[in-house]
């Protein structure tokens, strides 16, 4: 239906505008805050040749408005300067670390949502029982406990005491994966992914659980569910085809919220587990005053978050036939 495409186009356009504004904010922030506008891209430790290259690339000797245009142009071409700390281009560093963040986020999100949806249905089914009350409290606990602390507790118990899982990184010391495929097929990688993934999962599942439960309550009172009962259909059929199928729609919108939350979680969790992803990159860069890298990492995180939101919106429009225009 053409209606859906207009919707997608509109959202895509919106996303680009927001990214443009974020880029602009970053532009001003990284130039105005430290005081010296040059500091955004050039560090004294760079040799003269490198400094000259960067001056030219970013027009650092030209007026501000010119720099801005050059900046946006460079951003399009993924040129974000050279990292002070690592010496490599920001682009290369981010390219290396991006997959790790994606693996962590996607793995945890999928697990959290699948679990949350079914657990939410279960809680709704067992409404009023002690099980439901306990489930509710448990869910709120997972939203109230700070993620880094949950991570620390898991680490102490499962990594340091029980020695079941490694405590940091994506691989054991000295091991380097040749490429992404090798990484993903290595059981050692998954061992490393487990605890950070579990931590993020614990935090994320609360939202879909509570939401699904609440939606089920709303839906179970609807006329079409009553009517299905009157037709003498089986309890399972009613619960899934009539109730859950409708209750799940708002979950798709909340997916955007969940994604946003998980990107938050990433930053903290990656730092606790020294997981080499965008979040760790960002914090390290900020602490090291590595401005080009900090800018780049922040921007890329925003891009991913917005992009995943867009996917969530599209998913919703696919699930609900009423959404088109």
């Amino acid at each position: 239906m053409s209606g859906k495409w207009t919707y997608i186009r509109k959202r895509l356009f919106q996303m680009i505008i927001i990214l443009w504004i974020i880029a602009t904010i970053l532009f001003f922030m990284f130039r105005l805050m430290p005081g010296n506008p040059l500091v955004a891209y050039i560090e004294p430790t760079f040799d003269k040749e490198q400094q000259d290259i960067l001056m030219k690339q970013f027009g650092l000797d030209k007026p501000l408005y010119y720099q801005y245009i050059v900046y946006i142009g460079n951003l399009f071409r993924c040129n974000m300067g050279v990292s002070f700390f690592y010496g490599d281009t920001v682009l290369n560093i981010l390219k290396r670390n991006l997959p790790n963040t994606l693996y962590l986020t996607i793995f945890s999100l999928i697990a959290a949502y699948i679990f949350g949806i079914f657990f939410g249905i279960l809680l709704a089914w067992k409404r009023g029982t002690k099980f439901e009350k306990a489930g509710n409290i448990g869910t709120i606990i997972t939203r109230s406990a700070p993620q880094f602390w949950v991570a620390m507790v898991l680490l102490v118990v499962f990594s340091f005491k029980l020695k079941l899982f490694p405590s940091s990184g994506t691989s054991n010391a000295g091991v380097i994966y040749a490429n992404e495929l090798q990484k993903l097929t290595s059981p050692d990688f998954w061992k490393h992914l487990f605890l950070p993934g579990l931590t993020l999962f614990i935090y994320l599942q609360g939202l879909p659980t509570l939401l699904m439960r609440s939606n089920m309550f709303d839906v179970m009172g609807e006329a079409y569910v009553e009517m299905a009962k009157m037709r003498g259909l089986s309890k399972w059929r009613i619960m899934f085809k009539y109730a859950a199928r409708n209750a799940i729609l708002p979950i798709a919108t909340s997916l955007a919220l969940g994604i946003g939350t998980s990107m938050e979680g990433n930053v903290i969790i990656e730092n606790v587990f020294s997981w080499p992803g965008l979040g760790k990159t960002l914090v390290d860069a900020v602490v090291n005053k590595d401005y080009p890298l900090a800018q780049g990492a922040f921007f890329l995180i925003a891009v991913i978050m917005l992009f995943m939101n867009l996917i969530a919106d599209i998913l919703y429009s696919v699930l609900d036939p009423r959404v088109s225009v």
Partner: protein
Amino acid sequence: MALLEVKDLRIYYETSKGMNQAVDGISFSVDEGKSICLVGESGCGKSTTVNGIIQVMPKNAKIISGEIIFNGEDLLKISNKRLKEIQWRDMSLIPQAAMDSLNPVYKVIDPFIEILRIKGGMSKKIAVRRIDELFKMVGLDIKRAQYYPFEFSGGMKQRAVIALALVLNPKLVIADEPVTALDVIIQKQILVELGRIRKQFGLALVMITHDISVAKTFDDIVIMYAGKIFEKGSSYNVLKTPIHPYTMGLENAFPSLDDDKKTLISIEGTPPHLVNPPKGCRFADRCPFSKDICFKEEPILVEVETGHFSACHFISDIKEIRRKAMEVETWLNMKS
């Protein structure tokens, strides 16, 4: 033997404020192929009664006592499995809220196919043929079945749920205010259609309405108020010679397409709360003819003439009451 026999049914709701005595001793019966109309104001217990008959009620509704004998079986005593067999195959319901009665994320044809496969044992091909018949019967284009509910108009949705109720050829169809949400012209159309379908298939029909003028075409009428039956009998008798003040009040209150000389008079006041129902007759405070005894003793439903019942202390004065009830002043004077 009657197809459906409701005997002294009592259904109460558990609420935070106490037990709401929504249906308090209702008895009526429907023979095969006959039609009966349950008439009464909102909240009088009509919907609760039929929800009790088809056995789909909210969690806080409790059946306190009574029997619902359908085709010789007491629905309140049979197993869940047996109940599920009966539901929709022998007895079905046309809902009040046709707007929301179809699963919004599936096409309109879906519930038809679903039930024909599961309960009718038909393959999809045969099912579609049957659905085509049904759609024609209610005046819908079969091509529309591929649409979603939100793409149907109110009238179309109503026709679709009627078709759905008939899909397995039940013996008894309950219609819960099937035309209330529609405009008057369509109302008449659909009622006529229902009547035609009923005669064609020999269905027994139980219809709920708060508009007494609709009840004309039915075989029998039951007048309900605040969980009780006030009058019951053949529609001819009840409408021509009502023997209860409430019935008379109802007749005065509704416009009908055929009789435009009538002045509309409404009954002042509202029905009582049923958590602690008043002693005596529940209509006493709104009835222009009530006397002391009405507030103290509850009138019993008695057979005044064959097949015509009434629950009023002043049945002996009914002719006089009927005369006075036709005058506007009788009802307006209740304002004080």
